[in-house]
Each structure stands twice: as C-alpha cells, then as structure tokens.
C-alpha cells in the first residue's frame, strides 16, 4: 500500500507539471483557437530567465520567478502582436505551423544566450522532504502542486469575476457577438498570450527545479503534455488539470507495475502509455473528457 501511495505521489507531482504546461496551451486555444506548439519554448525561456535573474543577477528566488513571469508574458504579447494577429481566420494547419516556426526561433535564441550546459536553477527547495507516515514527499514536488493549484484558482477567479476574463470567455464563445458588445478581440488575444507566457514560466520553474536540471531539453516536456490537453479537452482549464494528473499518475503507475502485470507490452512502456491512454479516450470521447464538441454549421 505504501508503495502504491509513493507511486501516486510521484505521479501527482509529475501531473502537476504537465497541468501547468497544459494550462498555457488551453488558455491560448480557448481565446484564439490556436494550438500553441511554441508553449514549450515559453516554458524553456521562463526557466532560463528565472536562472538569469536569480543566479546571475543574484535576486531573491521569488522575485526572479515573478520577473521571469512578467518578461515571458511580454514575449507572449509580442508574439501575438507581431505574428499571430495577422493569422486570424486562417486554417488550423497554418496556425499550428506558425507556432512550430516560433518554437524553433525561441529554442535557438534561448540556447544562443544561455548555452547548452546543464545549470542549477537556484531554487530554495533543494532536496527537502516531508513525511506522512511512510510516504516521502519532495518539497519541490509539493510546490509544483501548490503552484498548479494556485494557477487554477487564479484562472477561476479571473474568468469568473474580472471584466477581461469575462470578455475572454465571451470571445471564446462567439467572437463576433463579443465584438458587437464592445469587447476588443485584440485585447483578449494579447491577454491570452500574456497569461500563457506567465503560466509557461511558472511551469518551467517547476520542471527545471532540482540539481543541474536546467538544460535545453526541458522544452520537450511540453510535447509530453499534449496527451494531457487532448485527454482533458483542448479548451477546458479544468480538463487541463485533470488530464495532466491522469497522465502523470498513469506514467508513474506504468513505471511501477507494468513490468509485473503487463510485461508483454515490452520494457519501458511508460513514455508510450500517455499516448495510448489519449488514443483510447479519444475513441470514446472525440473531444476529450471536458472539451466542447465542435458544432458543424451548414
């Protein structure tokens, strides 16, 4: 039992990181209809900026995180203003690919500035742990969960009570009607990219925390978050969180038990399992667990 719980802890921790990445995807998709493949680039940029402010400039860690979130948000806004604004109304394919192009540029700029060597992010969590009975919880994992939960709470409040949040929801439902009500689509789109940038930076911090764990490969975790967003439904923040947790736990439990119970699938199935789960869920629910079905109008 304690073994199972230990695996669950690892799964939830991983899932929280996926959820933070997924939230960034979802907010952009919900507001602008774009699947942002460059989200991994924002995650990476946010982590490196935190390193830059916290370690190179020697600012307090949380100040560094906040600054990284602000700068990454600004980068998001710039991307929207300079490029995505001119892509409104283009087919899904073009929107996806333009963000792929952006990903390549973000990657190369980040590496050109900070290099390829593994770095220490300078987080205060170190190797600290909490114990609940036999179960060990790493401090940085706990923070990943706290930050993910906080992000969801902020999202909820923001969409529910702020006028910008309301405008975003309205725009997501019907862009023309929202425009007619005097809501600025431009403002909404820019806000979505800013929020995604800030969330991405936060995700980057949770992923790169730990020993010598900041290197350019952290961007790849964003691709592993895809099953999470599809599973949860591409336009649902709640779905992002649930999807992230499901995928994280699935991976951890696969790692824990597959060799024992499903050995015929071959070794090392844990990286494949999220995609298998995603495909299975889509067969039953083509729009994910919490996604909005696309309505076809003739």
């Amino acid at each position, binding site marked *: 039992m304690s073994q199972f719980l230990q695996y669950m802890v690892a799964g939830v921790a991983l899932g929280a990181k996926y959820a933070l990445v997924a939230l960034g995807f979802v907010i952009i998709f919900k507001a602008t209809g774009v699947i942002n493949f460059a989200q991994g680039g924002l995650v990476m940029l946010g982590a490196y900026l935190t390193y830059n402010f916290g370690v190179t400039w020697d600012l307090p860690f949380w100040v560094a995180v906040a600054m990284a979130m602000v700068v990454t948000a600004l980068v998001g806004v710039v991307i929207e203003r300079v490029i995505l604004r001119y892509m409104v109304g283009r087919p899904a*394919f*073009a929107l*996806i*690919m333009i963000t792929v192009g952006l990903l390549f540029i973000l990657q190369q700029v980040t590496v050109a500035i900070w290099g390829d060597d593994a770095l220490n992010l300078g987080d205060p969590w170190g190797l600290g742990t909490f114990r609940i009975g036999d179960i060990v919880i790493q401090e940085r994992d706990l923070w990943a969960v706290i930050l993910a939960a906080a992000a969801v709470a902020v999202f909820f409040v923001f969409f529910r009570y702020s006028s910008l949040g309301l405008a975003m929801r309205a725009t997501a439902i019907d862009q023309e009607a929202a425009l007619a009500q005097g809501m600025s689509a431009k403002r909404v789109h820019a806000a979505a990219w800013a929020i995604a940038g800030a969330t991405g930076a936060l995700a980057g911090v949770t992923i790169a925390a730990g020993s010598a764990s900041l290197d350019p490969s952290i961007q790849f975790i964003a691709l592993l978050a895809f099953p999470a967003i*599809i599973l949860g439904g591409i336009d649902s923040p709640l779905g992002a969180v649930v999807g992230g947790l499901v995928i994280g736990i699935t991976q951890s439990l696969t790692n824990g038990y597959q060799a024992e119970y499903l050995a015929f699938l071959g070794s090392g199935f844990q990286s494949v399992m999220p995609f298998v789960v995603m495909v299975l869920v889509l067969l039953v629910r083509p729009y994910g667990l919490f996604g909005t079905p696309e309505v076809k109008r003739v």
Partner: protein
Amino acid sequence: MARTSPYLVTDYRQELKAFGTGWKRFGVLVAAVLWLITPLQVGDAWLFILNFIAVFAIGGIGLNLLTGFAGQVSLGHAFFLGVGAYAAAWFGGQQELPLVLWLPIAGLVGAAIGALVGPIALRLSGHYLAIVTLALLFIGEHIFLEWTSVTGGTRGVRVNAGLSIGPVDFTALDVAGTTYSREQGLFWLLWGLVALAAVLAFNIVRTRPGRALQAIRDRDTAAEVIGVNITRYKVGVFAISSAYAAIAGGLYGAALLRSVRPEQFGDFNGILLSITFIAIIIVGGMGTTVGAILGSFVVVGLPRVIERFSGDLPFLIQGAGDSGLIRVSQFNNMLFGLLIIVFLLVEPMGIAAIWRRITTYFKAWPFSY
C-alpha cells in the same frame, strides 16, 4: 493570332490535359535534360544532397496529397517513413527481393498501416488530428524497439536492399565502358522516381478523387451534401500519403542512410522529421505537386549551402575557435522557423505561387492580366 489569357480554358478536355500548353511541354523537356546532365556536371558531395532532396520530395508529394489537397494535418509522416525503411531492410535486405518488388511492397505496407490507422485518426479533425498523429511516432518507436527480429532493436539494422533494375545496378552504373559513381547512378534512379511520383500524384488530383478531396478540404459538409463519401476519400488519401512516405522511407534507408535505428523515426527526431515534411510543402506551395519538389530544395538544400559558405559569412561560427555571433546550425534552425513563418504570413501558397506569377507575367507579356 489572337492572344488569350494563359488561364483561359475553353473546354474540359483542355482542362484535363496534363501538359496542355507549349510552355508546360517546354518545362518538362528542360527538366528531362537537367535530369540527364546534372550528374555529369555536379560533384558527388552536392549530388548526395540532391539525392536527399529527391527522397524528401517524394515524401513531400505524398504529404501534399493529404495536407495540401485534403486539408488533413499529420505529424505522423516520420512513422511511415520508418515503416518503409524497415520494410526495405526486411524485404529488400533479409529476403533479398529486387528493387521492383521491395519498393512497391514497402509502399503497400505503408498503405495498409495507413488504412488501418486512418479510420481511427480521421474521426478527429484539425487540431485533434495533428496531436493524435503524434501518438503514432511514440507508439511506432516502441514497436521498432521491441520487434527485434525485424528491426534489430536499439542498435537498428542495416538496409542492404538492392538498388538495381534487372541487370542495371544504380549504385555502380557501367554504361558503354564508362563507370559512374554511386551518387551519379542514384541521382538518375531517385529523380526518375520523383518524376514518377509526381505524375501519379498529378493524375490523382486532376481526376475525380482529387476534386473530391479538394471539396472536402474547402468545406467538408458541403462535399458530403453533394455526395462525396467523406470517410472513404479521407481514409483513401491517408493510405496513399502513407504509401508515398513508406516508399520515400524505403529509399531513404536503402539509398541514403543504409542503416536505420528506431530513434530516427520516433520521439523528438521523429517530430522534427515530420515537421520537415510539413515545412517542405508550406515553403514549396500547398496543393501543388511541383511545390513539394521546390520546397524540398529549399528546406533540405539551403542549410547545406549555408554551411558550405559559412566561412564567407563572418557572423556564423563553425568549429572550435571560430568567432562570430551564432553557430551555423543554430542559424539554420532559426532560418527554418523563420521560413515557415514568413511563408505562412506572406505567401501561403509558397514558391510555386511566386513562380506561377512570374511565368504568367512573361506568358502574358506585354499585357498584365
């Protein structure tokens, strides 16, 4: 003689003709001559790059059918490339079948798997499809790793498939006492196959299935209403596109790489490979067969050209101890991203459209309609 607009078509026969105008015939001739003489003029190092371009053009033509004509986005193209490469290794290498057999078999295997996966994938549309095809890469790599008797597991497998048609061995051509290098022979073989692939694709798109696909791309509901069987055509084009990819993959393995490992087609390398194909059709021109070929020249060839001349570009770094702003491949990767963005923003129909505008200008000269 009255001059009419080059676009004026007065009957269906004219519209259906593949090489209707004199200009087009001239173009085909020039291409044939270039095909014949390029290997005699160009050194092996550049021929190898041209051969690489040829293989990517074949895969690109296939993806263009799926994406450019039918409007379906797939990030799983690299998986089918892998399928083809392993099929070549197995049927051409282990079973020692000749090229005329193993290459079509590789295509059939690709088509079969495409037809199997298609119905599942194509229930989804747009964004969902793009991401679900990602799953193919991860699941595919796992199969390549685990099916060791065919794939050789993590260490991969040599692709010893023959590259001769009858007595003509393209890797060691010997015509009338003159011997030609491997790259020369393969250039004739691969670019010959590009022409074949292009003509086949061209025939698919200008006849009934092609029109059905374009109808689906432009408005699937409307297409359904006028009696196009959407599922059948979508799965069909997915299978054909997969067959193209598998054939490209077989040639990729047998003619260019000569050994393959699972990680080349899965995971992040696989995504990169799939994206390369998408970039090819974006840059070259969506929905035009010749676009895939042009795009392949730019996307595959340009980085090598830049590398070659990086010594003359002082801001590029190559090797230890060189000074400059940025490494050559970083620059190339950025350029790759930039090309995608610029073409999508400025010229969504790619080089093919630019080319068409130029030729139309001259054809219609001095009139500008």
